[in-house]
């Protein structure tokens, strides 16, 4: 039962067969780490001083153990290296990635959305520590290698049976095996078994990862209320468990509670500001929630974090520029000008960084044209548009570029061209609800963010007035809203419904019918796949019947 003090010069068995890579920006650390590993019996040891070189090395050579300092000076940090190694599959599942940090805790790397290192080693590191950790980790690697090999081959059922078999034999790796088991069931879509693993753990003890795992199975089965209540109490008990916030936000967003999801993600991003995927998610949710200012801020952070990250993408730049262009449209104040100029800078940066991405560059030009238009620089806007406008847009452009084009045409008051493009797109993508939604949104509200918001506010007021039996006030609100978005389907139909409710034969009926006809006219080009189409047909028939009567 007793472990005697170990012989500090003991070599680790089989270590000579392993290939080591040491990544540290300080030469003295590289040297001393190499020396320590040598004294433990390691023979294949490579060193390098920055992330980019490390990634290159790993492209050509397979390493069994990577010891990487978190802080690598300028350029990529240890987390970037880890994510890129795993993302590009430059190291195997069976390899060990050890993050070396000067931090006591995992605070810098805390809450990385994906890819955790196999172990942390905190500086200063001495020989005895390294000997102890290395032999423990190598033993772990060897013991668990059969499971990891099956996972690498995506042979999940085999990995599951190995886990089940090893669980009673390996108390040392119990936590790892249980987490892996639950994760494997989850990845196979067997949520019942995944949940069972977590529930068994929770029977013995309230363990945060098992609570999170449990909630994730409920989310996967769309049992959002159950998931949310688990996650709410988990966050209350473990306010620094950032992954729980991510799951909670997912659950809330899936229920359409966008504002709540946004707030949760904001709290998570505050605690763990370095995870790019979380910032990206926050930006998307804020954007869906129409909180454009918050979305812009999150896109800014995403771009900043993307500089050295494998997750960097042209989309981040486009989305920031789109948000900024909405914020500054028709705002020529100093503030508006500053936002417009930030949008331009962002788009320029995109065109430099992603110059091979033709689609992104075309979209960038189209957004830039809108920025000009929003600052009343119509000449510049038109010139930019002409530079990228093909003869037959829909047949030569990708769908997302065509949608961007339609939006820019609207901004330049070339509505009929925009509508033609949207109609053609709608026909082409009848079975793709995502694209249909985007088309509808543009057809309904081809105007600036602020006008859209005013119209929505008025629509709300109109509905409230109507519910309070005040049809005149309702009609007034809807009419005013329609001055912002004349072709908005729901608004036009709401106005018709008010007028119809006021009934025929009363003074003013004639004018009302006239007004209704105007609304029908505005919706004449409504595509039959529009969600309001059925309602449009019904109300149109009623209006026609009324006009026949009178």
């Amino acid at each position, binding site marked *: 039962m007793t472990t005697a003090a170990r012989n500090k010069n003991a070599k680790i068995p089989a270590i000579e067969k392993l290939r080591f890579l040491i990544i540290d920006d300080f030469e003295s650390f590289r040297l001393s780490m190499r020396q320590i590993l040598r004294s433990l019996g390691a023979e294949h040891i490579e060193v390098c001083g920055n992330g980019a070189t490390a990634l290159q090395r790993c492209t050509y050579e397979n390493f069994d153990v990577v010891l990487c300092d978190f802080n690598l000076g300028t350029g990529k940090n240890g987390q970037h290296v880890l994510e890129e190694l795993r993302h590009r599959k430059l190291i195997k599942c069976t390899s060990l990635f050890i993050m070396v940090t000067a931090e006591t*805790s995992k605070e810098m790397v805390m809450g990385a959305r994906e890819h955790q290192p196999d172990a942390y080693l905190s500086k200063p590191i*001495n020989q005895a*520590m390294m000997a102890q950790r290395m032999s423990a980790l190598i033993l772990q690697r060897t013991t668990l290698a059969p499971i990891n090999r099956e996972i690498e081959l995506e042979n999940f059922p085999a990995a599951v049976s190995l886990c089940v078999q090893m669980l009673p034999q390996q108390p040392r790796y119990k936590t790892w095996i249980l987490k892996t088991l639950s994760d494997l069931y989850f990845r196979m879509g067997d949520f019942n078994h995944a949940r069972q693993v977590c529930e068994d753990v929770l029977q013995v*003890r309230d363990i*945060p990862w098992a609570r999170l795992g449990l909630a994730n199975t409920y989310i996967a089965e769309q049992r959002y209320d159950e998931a949310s209540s688990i996650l709410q109490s988990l966050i209350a008990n473990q306010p620094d*468990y950032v992954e729980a916030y991510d799951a909670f936000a997912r659950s809330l967003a899936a229920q359409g509670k966008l504002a709540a999801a*946004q707030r949760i993600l904001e709290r998570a991003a505050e605690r763990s500001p370095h995870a790019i995927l979380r910032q990206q998610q926050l930006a998307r949710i804020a954007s869906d929630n*129409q909180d454009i200012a918050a979305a812009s801020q999150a896109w800014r952070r995403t771009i900043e974090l993307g500089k050295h990250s494998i997750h960097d993408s042209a989309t981040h730049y486009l989305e920031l520029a789109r948000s900024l262009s909405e914020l500054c449209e028709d705002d020529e104040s100093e503030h508006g000008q500053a936002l417009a100029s930030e949008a331009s800078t962002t788009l320029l940066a995109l065109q430099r960084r992603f110059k091979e991405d033709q689609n992104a560059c075309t979209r960038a030009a189209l957004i830039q044209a809108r920025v000009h238009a929003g600052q009343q620089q119509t000449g510049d806007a038109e010139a930019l548009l002409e530079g990228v406008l093909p003869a037959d847009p829909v047949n030569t452009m990708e769908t997302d570029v065509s949608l961007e084009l339609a939006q820019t045409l609207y901004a330049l008051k070339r509505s009929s061209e925009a509508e033609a493009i949207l109609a053609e797109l709608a026909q082409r993508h009848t079975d793709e609800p995502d694209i249909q939604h985007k088309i509808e949104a543009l057809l309904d509200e081809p105007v600036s963010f602020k006008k859209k918001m005013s119209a929505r506010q008025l629509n709300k007021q109109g509905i409230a007035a109507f519910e309070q039996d005040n049809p005149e006030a309702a009609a007034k609100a809807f009419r005013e809203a329609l001055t912002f978005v004349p072709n908005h389907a729901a608004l036009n139909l709401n106005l018709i419904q008010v007028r119809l409710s006021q009934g025929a034969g009363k003074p003013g009926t004639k004018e009302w019918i006239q007004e209704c006809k105007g609304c029908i006219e505005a919706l004449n080009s409504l595509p039959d796949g529009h969600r*309001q189409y059925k309602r449009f047909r019904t109300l149109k028939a009623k209006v026609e019947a009324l006009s026949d009567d009178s």
Partner: protein
Amino acid sequence: MTHDESEHNEPEDKKVPSRSPTGSAARASTDAATRIDFSMILASAVHDMKNSLGMLLHTMDELGAELSDEVRESKKFNTLRYETERVHGDLLQLLGLYRIDVESLTANIEEHFVPDFLESQVARHVPLLDGHNITHQISTEDINGFFDADLVAGVLNNILNNAIRYTKTHVEIEARQQDDFLVLSVADDGEGYPAQMLDNQPTHPGTMNFSTGSTQLGLYFASAVARLHENAGNAGRICLYNGGRLNGGVFEIWLP
């Protein structure tokens, strides 16, 4: 009347429409910026000092390799190493306390294999133990325990450092299960804890007496970490006494 749901979801959040830079939010943050958050400044300074000391320790290890055995094993060189290690440890505790207090750090409890955990904590101190000619022994069954490894490692780190200072020849690290608790203990064969420290065990900052040096800080941190561990109505605690198998000071942390 229909709310056209997806097209008409209003910004649910009231703060949304316009956050102009001249708005009240901007003014409030300027006010906050002019107030000095002293604990945060201290924490970041401590963080920086701790990293510097880490560098210092590393350089000392390197230097040690270049020195003659005589100098390397000299009392002065060991004192240099020990004192640096001690300040490094103190700063770690300060940061830990800051995080528990200000960032409402909670224990992230997982199941760990106790022998591996203890060995890796002791390994960090091997150069010091060797330097002071102190022998050590880890006694534990092959058991698993539930605790936050980062936090408990911080506690043991400080206690071991302290034991190295006050012991004569030997330090013993033991783990056992007792009354639904996992008990980790560090025993030495030194003079034991002073009576006043045993009477007045530091569970609250108000009862701390800094005149005895960093020991009190370490114990306060240990008891804060112990109390973050809860299970089935039991809370963790620490316990100090003199005597034990080595007839010196004994520190125990009881984790439910």
